[in-house]
């Protein structure tokens, strides 16, 4: 019913060449789980789809010297099943396991998830909490962008028309956790998500922390005020209370079909508390009943 061209790129070089040639007309497709929706909505008419799903070099999870590299074409399923990530970056592992449903996870890629730049993208808060870097290439050059600088707004990123995400890189951190609230437990766009990673010294003081939230602002955000409230402190009751108070300064939620801004403001501190406590390895004195 809709018109477009489709070219499958055999390798990264071919993909970059095609991007260079097609420029504004190019539309990359990896797992196509966002692309199909766009096609249906008539947003892709007369464009050239460049298929990168089968490019082997874009896929896989590697670990070396404390650094984890995930190819942009790695599927959410691969992440959700990775025992390496379960141990070294539970925050991302957990997010992948709450992502959509198994069939969608089989197609959806991590590169597509961040490139699409939905405020509700489930892998974005974990990657922000892990202080990841995005490795980007175009014909003839490469660059690295900090996750924090990657998102510009709703469906907007720093990616140029002719650029391709190659991979995402970050340092392992077993002390990290993710939590998602959606309108149901599967196949739901998130209402609020939160991710946290912490490092502590031997006395239990927090020496490094990153907290991020999804669906509470035009783009996935770091919660700098919340981080400040806990940095250098012990994860005790007072710190947690301060943390919850600070969260409201980090977010600017809106009303949408899924939830009101007010509800998001009400639950964001609760969710942040949960992930922070989980990352610190302490029981948040509250749990799900299921």
């Amino acid at each position, binding site marked *: 019913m809709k018109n477009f061209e489709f070219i499958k790129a055999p390798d990264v070089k071919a993909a970059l060449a095609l991007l260079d040639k097609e420029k504004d007309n190019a539309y990359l497709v990896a797992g196509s789980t966002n692309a199909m929706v766009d096609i249906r909505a008539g947003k892709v008419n007369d464009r050239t789809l460049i298929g990168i799903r089968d490019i082997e070099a874009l896929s896989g999870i590697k670990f070396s010297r404390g650094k984890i590299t995930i190819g942009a074409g790695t599927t959410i399923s691969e992440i959700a099943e990775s025992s390496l990530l379960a141990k070294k970056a539970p925050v991302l592992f957990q997010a992948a396991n709450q992502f959509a449903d198994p069939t969608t996870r089989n197609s959806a890629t991590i590169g597509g998830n961040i490139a699409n730049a939905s405020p509700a993208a489930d892998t974005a808060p974990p990657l922000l909490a892990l202080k990841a870097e995005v490795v980007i290439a175009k014909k003839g050059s490469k660059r690295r962008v900090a996750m924090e600088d990657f998102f510009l707004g709703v469906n907007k990123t720093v990616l140029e028309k002719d650029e391709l995400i190659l991979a995402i890189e970050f340092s392992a951190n077993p002390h990290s956790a993710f939590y998602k609230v959606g309108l149901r437990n599967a196949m739901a766009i998130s209402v609020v998500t939160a991710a946290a990673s912490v490092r502590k010294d031997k006395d239990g003081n927090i020496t490094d922390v990153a907290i991020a939230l999804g669906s509470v602002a035009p783009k996935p955000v770091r919660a700098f005020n919340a981080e400040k409230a806990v940095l250098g402190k012990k994860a005790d009751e007072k710190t947690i209370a301060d943390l919850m108070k600070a969260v409201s300064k980090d977010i600017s939620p809106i009303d949408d079909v899924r939830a009101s801004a007010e509800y998001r403001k009400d639950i964001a501190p609760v969710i942040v508390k949960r992930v922070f406590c989980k990352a610190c390895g302490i029981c948040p004195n*509250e749990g799900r009943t299921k």
Partner: protein
Amino acid sequence: MSVIGKNTPRIDGPAKVSGKQQYASDIIIPGMMYAVTLRSPYPHAEILSIDTSEAEAMGAVCLTYEDIIPVIYNERSVSVPAATYRDRTVLPKKARHIGEPIAAVAADTEELAYKAMQALKVEYKVLDAVYEPEEAMKDGAPQLYDKIYFGDEEVIVKNNIGVVRNIDEGDSVGGFARADRIFEEDFELPRIYHCQLETKGCVAAPDTEGGITVWATAQSIHGNRQLLAQTLGLPLSKVNVKKITLGGGFGSSIQVNTVTPICAALAMKARRPVKLLSAREEDFYSHHKYPSKFHVRIGVTNDGVITAAHVKALIDFGAHQIQPMSFMGCVAGWFASLYKYEGNIKFDGVAVYTNKTPCCAMQGYGNPQINFAIESMVDIICNEMGFDPIQFRLKNYRGTGEEFWGQGPTIRSIIKSCGVEESLVEGSKLMEEWATRGKPEDKHGDILTGVGLARGFHCSGTAGPKEGEVIDYSSALVKVNEDGSIDCVTPVMDHGGGTWDALAKILTEVFKVPLNMVGLSPADTKNTGYDVCTHATRGVYCGGAAVYNAAVKCRDKLLEFAGRVMDEHPCHLEIVENEELGQGFIQVKGFPQKGRTIGEVAKIAQINSWGTAMYAESFRQKNCPPCFTTHFVKVAVNTRTGEITIPKVVIYGDCGVAMNPDLLYGQLIGSFNRGLGYVLYENLPHDERTGKLKNNGLLVDYKMPTAVEMPKAENVIVRHAHTYEPTGPFGAKGIGEAALASVQAAIANAIYNATGIRFTKLPITPEIMLKALQEKGLAHK
């Protein structure tokens, strides 16, 4: 071994799981065109002109209001014509809701049809729209209609009031006067969407004799045929609607779907086969469940007797009447039949036109709505007056020997089988937490748990000892083949709940043959007698009874042949099972020494030119037995986020003899899931500025619960009551719609037990829950 009451694999299972089952959308005919509808972007607008020239230049065939026969009809033909309001045509001169089909085009490819549709030029005169019934009834509100028809009579519409229905029985004034306490409450239930798997579609193929053959998403092939003949101006004998598997209904195709007459008219105009399928986004604007507002008053004595009840109903039914008249009659009937009220009941219903999607039946036809109100009221009464909720119900409910209104005030029969007591008493034991549930004020912590109870029912069909407002009968032809296998031709539809399996089982029991020796033949409107529709939980009880009746008469004919073969009087013969022979065996009663297989008898009858043992007839049930359900639900409310989960549920169903217990359990569990959606998730709010659905017809913003929102499998406890319906085929009644009736109130009552908060408006989303907890000072951080 009899297969009645046994679990047997679904006959259509392999075809369905392997994707080989054919639905209307799978029909492909050489030379077929594809059609697309143009749908109104305005909630209310006059259509001044439609310019089709550009689309036609592209090779498309176009259909507008100028091409159709302006028959004014109601697409739901279940009620008798004299009790039916009519207000619509195949295509309108005036759009009355967003998404209403305005015109249609057919072309060689779907893509071309789509482009041609975009090339249609419509001149609209946009009118003010009205969305809320209270607003619509005000003087000066935008008027959807000037006049409509009731039966053959012209009716002037005032203040958008479509139907007023008042019912007054007994002496409610006296009943309330006798009450020691009177309880009063308002309830509100949202618009929701059927979300049946198969979106509405149709394939229509004109033939060379001026007739047409149609495959449509339908719950009644005869209903479709009648309307198509009318709107195409053809004799019924020239319209053939084929029975084909339906991909789920929930009531969405009780009426003839809007796209069906459009598709047929396009095909006739194009003189070529045409396929018209609805996209999900279009289907979302096609039909909804009736949103309902009730004001309920109930009088009770200090010793726990309900003395009177009064329900006022306000129904927003959208832009067309698909029978709010019978809907309100049914609501009154469900309400009247739940408890005895000493016979003093009053119902005042008003149903109002609004510029929204038309509402039609959806699992329960008002029953889940009014049940939520009454069963919540019963909980309020028990809590306030200190009655035991089970004893109070047992004291007041309508059971065996009492009158049941099966389909509004005109269809009444006596209840002859009833599992209410068993369900309440045994159910409360299975839900161990029931006894220890405590009171809301005693509960503490950030997760509050509670247990709730509600009971309900639905009718099994709409027949009764006397004819009433509704048509109810079915037809079947049964014949015995020369090898002892059985054919049956019947127009009865299956929504996916297993009706056809049940029909096959009824045949096996009459002829004592194994399941693989019976087959349902392809059927259509030309080779079958009338069947009203598979609705009102009537498939097995009424459709099955028609098959049973024809089968028994066919068997009598076969025994007559057997008498001739065996030199015996037929009254001395019986059919018994014979596993070794793999078919029914006719013997002298009690004496297997003298006998023949039914196949041998049929063969000899054929060779001797006596004829085929066959029988065709239509049959009406003379009762409308209620099928009962009871739900005990445990909830857990998270006081930090407002999230509500269901750790456990006990479901009791009473369908008489269960033809296939697994399928019964599937209905009960599936319906619990749907109820969960109705109470906690689903709603279809409209944007007041544009008249659009806020989800834009997209599933992504219409969340229904999935399997993971259900309690763990081991905590879904399902039982069926030990009852036998004497008037049903082999003791069976229905279950489908009953399975939803009491889910809503049970969950809401459990939430009350957990939190002390009484919700009288659905849905109860986490956001609404959290707000209520905050207002009560129960929210945690």
